[in-house]
């Protein structure tokens, strides 16, 4: 199918792009592989802050692969290079220095970028940070280390904001999280989960404030220290030396748009990863795809999705037809609590909460659409996560009364034998 003259260019070197490159070699791609990213760092796990990077003493990021791996698999890395133009008709692209690169197949692993909310004064505030790249984290670390009061305000109570709050708290910060919605994690989880994490953060000394819409930020002096004053619509305000914005991301679709690809909440792809142009594929955070199990279109921002999609795309590019059909999963580590999520809870009709007897903070939430188990959110409860994964994959019906009865230990017997 492919020859040594073919060139596969991959734009974006995070989980999706890097894994696609290595999977292409596994699938016997004979031609060149060129992996391009605007980030100058050797590709690393993202987002580094939400893991242990901030609390670790090392200055290096957590690399996805050692440099020798790229050499061994003959993958050309073009790091610190931005792709500015894509010409899908002539199958070539241009870097910011106008270098032209031809391709046989192109993979867009362009990811997503942080949303910067329209808040008066925010853009003029020098000391606000987002949470996406290694450079962001280095900047946060430096700013935090230089701060006198160690006061941090985080705008946004989603997973990224909360994981960051936990990491910063560990190194002694005074952290306030401002959430615009009525509860943290509202977009992604039920109130039980929000309540759990609100309590967890409060116990650890992080202030979680909900229904707080930020209206304005301004630079000011407080006791001789330069701080940012964060004003909310209810007239309350908070001061910070480090201001972090984590209110979500939007997919990077500029190049796809230039190429005239079909877009919808990201780059529309078929189950093979192919876009509306047969020589261009999209993978990871930027790819809007159809989930066969849930029969719905989704765009997922997760390592699992990036890694699993990269296998499908590499196989299809090499002429081995495979379709993407997986159950999404996700995790979040905060303090010593592990949250593991499997499935998509959208459109649930009811849910069951299990708080395991005699075990502190071992909780699982099981989401249903009538008889169908959709998703499980497991807090410190890997067993629930594992059972949930198996039940969802096998489309098992659950005996809900058994599941709800915590005097019955969680076991495979809660599934109704078909």
């Amino acid at each position, binding site marked *: 199918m492919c020859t040594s003259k073919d060139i596969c260019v991959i734009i974006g070197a995070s989980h999706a792009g890097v894994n696609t490159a290595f999977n292409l070699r596994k699938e016997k791609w004979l031609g060149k592989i060129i992996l391009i990213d605007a980030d100058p760092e050797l590709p690393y*796990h993202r987002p580094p802050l939400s893991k242990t990077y901030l609390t670790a003493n090392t200055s290096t990021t957590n690399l996805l692969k050692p440099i020798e791996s790229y050499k061994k698999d003959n993958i050309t890395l073009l790091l610190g290079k931005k792709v500015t133009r894509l010409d899908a008709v002539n199958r070539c692209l241009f870097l910011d220095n106008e270098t032209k690169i031809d391709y046989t197949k192109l993979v867009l692993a362009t990811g997503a970028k942080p949303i910067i909310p329209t808040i008066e004064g925010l853009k003029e505030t020098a000391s606000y940070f987002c949470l996406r790249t290694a450079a962001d984290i280095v900047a946060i670390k430096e700013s935090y280390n230089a701060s006198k009061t160690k006061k941090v305000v985080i705008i946004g109570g989603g997973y990224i904001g909360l994981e960051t709050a936990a990491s910063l708290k560990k190194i002694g910060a005074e952290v306030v999280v401002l959430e615009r919605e009525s509860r943290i994690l509202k977009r992604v989880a039920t109130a039980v989960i929000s309540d759990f994490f609100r309590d967890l953060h409060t116990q650890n000394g992080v202030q979680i404030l909900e229904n707080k819409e930020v209206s304005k930020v301004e630079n000011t002096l407080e006791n001789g220290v330069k701080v940012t004053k964060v004003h909310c619509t209810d007239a309350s305000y908070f001061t910070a030396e480090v201001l972090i914005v984590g209110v979500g991301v939007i997919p990077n679709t500029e190049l796809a748009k230039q190429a005239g690809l079909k877009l919808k909440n990201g780059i529309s792809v078929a189950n093979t990863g192919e876009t509306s142009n047969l020589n261009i594929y999209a993978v990871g955070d930027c790819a809007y795809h159809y989930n066969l199990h849930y029969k719905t279109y989704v765009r997922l921002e997760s390592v699992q999705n990036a890694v699993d999609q990269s296998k499908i795309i590499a196989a299809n590019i090499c002429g081995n037809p495979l379709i993407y059909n997986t159950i999404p999963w996700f995790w979040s580590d905060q303090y010593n609590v*592990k949250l593991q999520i499997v499935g998509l809870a959208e459109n649930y009709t009811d849910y069951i909460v299990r708080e395991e007897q005699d075990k502190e903070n071992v909780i699982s939430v099981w989401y249903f659409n009538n008889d169908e188990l959709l998703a499980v959110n497991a807090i410190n409860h890997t067993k629930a996560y*594992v059972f949930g994964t198996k039940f969802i994959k096998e489309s098992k019906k659950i005996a809900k009364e058994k599941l709800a009865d915590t005097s019955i230990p969680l076991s495979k017997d809660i599934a109704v034998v078909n």
Partner: protein
Amino acid sequence: MAKITFITSSNEKITVAATEGSVMELAVNNNVQGIDGDCGGVCSCATCHVFVAPEDVDKVGVASEIETDMLELADDANEYSRLCCQIPVTDAIDNVVFTVAK
């Protein structure tokens, strides 16, 4: 300094040494095929599944509850299975042999 040997599914034998980090990090940093460590080492993905040589089980120790539960996701797990992101590199595991799961 601990010297550790990995045997990959293509029967490649790789012996490397380290003083710190996890066995998963050691494997990834040395290109051991089949150990991906997709989650970065927080016991959330089961892509660093290895089998401990039976004679080394005492040296390596046993899996935690979370790890044992995660291993349930691997179809080929057995009594010698470990997720090697959960095994710290120390002198205690000098000369241990890990076989990478398929």
